[in-house]
């Protein structure tokens, strides 16, 4: 009994000190929630949960750029669209396997990220933001210009073999949970990857170039190199989000979906979730994408008001929680301790 207790406390200690394990834990919780959702009456909500998870991943990639490296991108969604469309061409027209196609699409986006990075060597702030918008806009227009991409129309992938002979279809109700589980596992892996980058010399260098260029240079950190790297990583992660979109929804998404609007939504996930926050991305994604789709639309009185409420939510969080919605948690904690202290004081008083 004693031994078990010691082992348990030791395990708890290890867990407490390892954020990577936290991500795994969150992943398990998400999968359990998914299983509950699919067994319930509103089982289509699993699609929304998958969307929340996918955009949490994409937002984390953008956060690496915005929160850590102080750079902005307004074409995150465009890179997802490029990925879905090029994967369709690779997989359907050239019969390349899913994993290989995903890898190739991510490399393409990484290279595009390099171009954005080159611009970032010259521009800053809003100039850079709009330059990234240019790149996204141009590439989406390219998709719309060519028949090989069906001129940007939505296309559904035929049966996808993910790996070995793992085949699932979103059209079959019972198979959705497997796809969702796949997406969650991918999310956990990506969270760990980005956390590892953050806690490494690379992560520190990314922060150095944004917070103090002079110090970075004096310590031998090339601002140019790390700006390029930041954009390459961020676009690759956005592309990974596109891969997840293909993996779960099995469509390319119409070209109109991948415009400035969605990029702004992803940006708002970062701002609402909190810069440099990891779990905040899930919270932000849930607030921005999940709540309107899951709850607001179902309330008859509020129908059509979901956009307004999301807008108000964004405005309120920015005005009152400039460091992100995760801050609400700290405030609640503070309130709890305050109440506890008050209660204790009252108890002490009564006892006297």
């Amino acid at each position, binding site marked *: 009994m004693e031994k078990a207790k010691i082992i348990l406390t030791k395990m708890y200690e290890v867990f407490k000190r390892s954020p990577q394990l936290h991500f795994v834990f969150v992943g398990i919780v998400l999968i359990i929630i998914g299983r509950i959702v699919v067994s319930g009456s509103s089982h289509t909500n699993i699609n929304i949960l998958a969307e929340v998870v996918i955009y949490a991943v994409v937002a984390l990639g953008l956060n690496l750029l915005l929160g850590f490296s102080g750079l902005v991108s307004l074409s995150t969604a465009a890179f997802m669209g490029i990925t879905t469309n090029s994967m369709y061409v690779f997989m359907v027209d050239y019969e390349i396997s899913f994993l290989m196609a995903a890898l190739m699409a991510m490399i393409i986006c990484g290279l595009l990220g390099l171009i954005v990075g080159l611009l970032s060597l010259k521009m800053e702030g809003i100039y850079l933001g709009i330059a990234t918008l240019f790149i996204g806009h141009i590439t989406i227009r390219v998709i719309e210009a060519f028949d090989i991409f069906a001129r940007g129309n939505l296309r559904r992938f035929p049966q996808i073999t993910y790996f070995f002979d793992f085949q699932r279809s979103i059209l079959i109700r019972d198979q959705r949970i497997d796809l969702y589980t796949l997406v969650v596992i991918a999310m956990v892996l990506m969270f760990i990857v980005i956390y590892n980058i953050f806690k*490494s010399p690379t992560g520190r260098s990314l922060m150095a170039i944004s917070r103090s260029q002079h110090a970075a240079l*004096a310590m031998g950190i090339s601002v140019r190199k790390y700006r390029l790297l930041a954009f390459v990583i961020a676009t690759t992660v956005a592309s990974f989000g596109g891969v997840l979109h293909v993996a779960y929804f099995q469509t390319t998404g119409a070209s109109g979906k991948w415009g400035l609007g969605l990029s702004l939504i992803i940006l708002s996930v970062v701002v609402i979730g909190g810069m440099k926050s990891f779990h905040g991305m899930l919270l932000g994604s849930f607030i921005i994408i999940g709540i309107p789709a899951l709850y607001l639309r179902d309330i008859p009185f509020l129908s059509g008001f979901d956009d307004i409420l999301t807008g108000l939510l964004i405005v309120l969080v920015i005005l009152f929680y400039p460091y992100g919605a995760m801050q609400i948690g700290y405030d609640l904690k503070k309130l709890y301790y305050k109440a506890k202290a008050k209660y204790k004081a009252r108890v002490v008083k009564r006892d006297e």
Partner: protein
Amino acid sequence: MSKKPLLSLENVSMNFGGLKAVDNLSFTINEKEIIGLIGPNGAGKTTVFNCVTQFYKQYTGNISYVNRDDETVDLKNYKVTQIASLGIARTFQNIELIPDLSILDNVLIGAFNQYQTNVIAHIFRTPKMRQQEKEIKQKAENILERLNILHLKDFYVAGQPYGILKKVELARALITNPRLIILDEPAAGLNDRETDELEALVYQIRDDFDTTVLLIEHDMGLVMNICDRVVAINFGKFLAYDTPLNIQKNHHVQEAYLGKDE
């Protein structure tokens, strides 16, 4: 004391749109010396530092440096990012730290050149990367311990008092294995007790870390106490290069600080 030259400036000039910030300056500093660079406000002291560390590249003249292999090299042939690996480290007049990183992480930024791993290794946390991270962290902690701020290592930089920040900058410079350490106004903003501590620290840096120290300072007491020799400049021009005692007697220097007696 050894008398091998380490850094030598020959006829260095630097112009900012017609304004001569540094004007035909020459001096040489030897290994294991503590050299002070003094001059009234706007005399071009920080500009000299920025030229040496290659932040400014448009200077004329020659800045030569003896590298770890005892070869004399022209610093102009190196990029600003290569200066640290040559063994020249610096601190800044205005603190240049990363506010939202811990003190330990800030020091680790100085060890950038010592990592032989790339991003891929960082993503997967390869055993080699972890081993290296552990070794360098140990080294950083040793330095922090010597500067008496090890107990603060996990705190964020933001919100720390000025004296601590100066020490963190110093630690970040020290972890680069410097042969020459350049301090830009290390005592500015420090109280008397901290200044005294700094004095001991500069000796400690020279002896324990085996480095040469070049510092800009306005606190004349500190300069006179610790420097072996002092370079005085005014309006970018060389005034004198001598022992502290002689510098105090030098009438050019007195004129620069107090004005000419008419």
